[in-house]
């Protein structure tokens, strides 16, 4: 897997985990807004100096949560509007506190507990400090209301303190858990990448093994019997024909190795390898190519190069190798002083082999129709 693909995969895993976390917080805040906030507001509606004001405050919190829901669905973040949203949450709380006849942290006070959850939902991807600052700010706001406006006494302060344990404690716990979960998301992404890499390595190894098996199968018909014959001495290396077979098989092996190279023109690349085998034997080889041809599959290339390979492998001192791509045909030619050699027609039905000989020169041509 490339670095870019790895980075993409890692990012995808992290994004998925963070999205699920955000949806969970949204669900908790929505449940609290309705099950605690709205329910308490309706039950204790007689305890407010202005019920419409309470509805406005609740509506403002609901609007902020609705916006968070829309952003979550669209995979967007608050960006610069995050501050505005927190401001609206705190303003809604303060508005609610102003019309509470018995002050904060009473049964009628639905806003103190609800707003904390909504604030945590909005700040879910911010550092822990931001969430702590919000909770502390909101607590200070409620305490200010209690001390300045509601006429605090010892009982109400104690009630506020005991009430704050749950109201601040649960969101604080969640905020504290979100931060390590974000780290887990990153490490899960890394693990995912490792698993992907291991899977890719396994596939590469399996393909290499398959390719090796294919190569062995491809050599089974020609190279293996030759090697077996040389090993059990039924073939004599001093025999000219045996030496020719060896040269041809060496060319085939070289071509087989070259077939999997990533090059611009595999046909010319493989022919160069075949030419190199001849040059190592001291044969002067000219290679020239003209015109264009399409990308050719391995079986077509083998059909085109089988006979030229044999001619090159058995050339005595000189060979001219040419490729012409023109008029819907690609043809591979070898003219060489290779004497009479036995060549069979190419395996591909669209390929044809033609040979011509003068007394000292043989011309082998294989052509294949491209369209």
């Amino acid at each position, binding site marked *: 897997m490339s670095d870019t693909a790895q980075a993409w995969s890692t990012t995808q895993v992290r994004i998925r985990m963070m999205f699920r976390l955000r949806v969970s917080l949204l669900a908790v805040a929505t449940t609290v807004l309705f099950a605690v906030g709205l329910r308490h507001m309706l039950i204790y509606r007689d305890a407010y100096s202005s019920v419409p004001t309470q509805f406005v405050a609740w509506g403002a919190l609901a609007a902020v949560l609705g916006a968070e829901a829309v952003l979550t669905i669209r995979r967007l973040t608050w960006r610069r509007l995050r501050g505005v949203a927190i401001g609206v949450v705190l303003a809604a709380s303060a508005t609610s506190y102003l019309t509470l006849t018995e002050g904060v942290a009473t049964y009628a006070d639905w806003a103190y507990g609800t707003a904390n959850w909504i604030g945590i939902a909005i700040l879910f991807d911010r550092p822990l400090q931001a969430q702590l600052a919000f909770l502390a700010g909101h607590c200070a706001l409620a305490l200010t209301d209690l001390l300045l406006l509601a006429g605090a006494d010892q009982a109400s302060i104690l009630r506020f303190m005991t009430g704050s344990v749950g109201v601040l404690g649960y969101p604080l716990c969640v905020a504290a858990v979100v931060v390590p979960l974000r780290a887990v998301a990153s490490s899960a992404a890394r693990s995912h990448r490792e698993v992907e890499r291991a899977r890719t390595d396994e596939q590469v190894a399996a393909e290499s093994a398959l390719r090796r098996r294919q190569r062995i199968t491809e050599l089974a018909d020609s190279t293996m019997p030759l090697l077996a014959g040389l090993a059990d001495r039924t073939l004599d290396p001093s025999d000219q024909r045996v030496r020719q077979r060896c040269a041809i098989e060496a060319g085939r092996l070289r071509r087989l190795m070259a077939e999997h190279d990533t090059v611009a023109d595999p046909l010319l690349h493989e022919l160069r390898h075949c030419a190199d085998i001849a040059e190592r034997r001291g044969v002067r080889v000219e290679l020239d190519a003209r015109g264009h041809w399409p990308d050719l599959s391995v079986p077509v290339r083998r059909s085109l190069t089988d006979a030229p390979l044999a001619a090159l492998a058995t050339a005595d001192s000189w060979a001219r190798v040419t490729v012409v791509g*023109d008029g819907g045909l690609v043809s591979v*030619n070898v003219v060489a002083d290779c004497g009479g050699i036995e060549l069979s027609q190419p395996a591909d039905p669209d390929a044809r082999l033609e040979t011509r000989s003068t007394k000292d020169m043989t*011309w082998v041509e294989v052509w294949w129709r491209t369209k």
Partner: protein
Amino acid sequence: MADKVISAVLVDDHVAIAAGVGSWFSLAEPPIVLLNAGDRLPDLWTGPGARADVVIFDLELVPRQPNFGELRRLVKNRRRVVVYSQHADQETALRCVDLGALAYLTKREGEEHLVPAVRAAAEGRSYTAPTLSGVLVTDERPERPSLTPREREVLRAWFVSSSKDLVARKLDISAKTVETHIERVRAKYAHVGRAAPTKSDLVSHALDDGLITLDELTAQRDV
């Protein structure tokens, strides 16, 4: 022409090339006289070089700067030029043919092509070596001349086999007919390559081809 000793002036800055060509020419039958101008282009225009029958021209005395201008000047001054280049790319070869070089040989093509190319050029005929044949048969420019299927077959076979005997055998024609086809292709290229953007160029071509004579031209003016 048969009895006349052919002389050729070689422009090439490689001493080994000059020595090799000199050796081939001295062993040719009949021998060809070689004048070595080295990398001195002025020697083509003065002294014995100016009188040589054929100019053998290395296109790239300065690496990667083919001297098409000098080739154009030589052809314009009716010098018979064989381009001997180390490059085999399509574009360079076609441009030399268009500019009027009688032969374009790559340096991989040795005496078996250079000697007949110089002999043909001395007689004002073109010579097409296998490499140039491959260039012509795969020429896809819109301005290329139209070739018959047979001409294409001959060019292709000559390129791949580099043996006129093998071409003749494959196409079941005589070696002489092979040469006729190739010469006809070059004639078509010569016709297309001679651009005549002005009226004076047209008149010049007409004079070259013998369609009109100088006397006729003067008589026309006097009327």
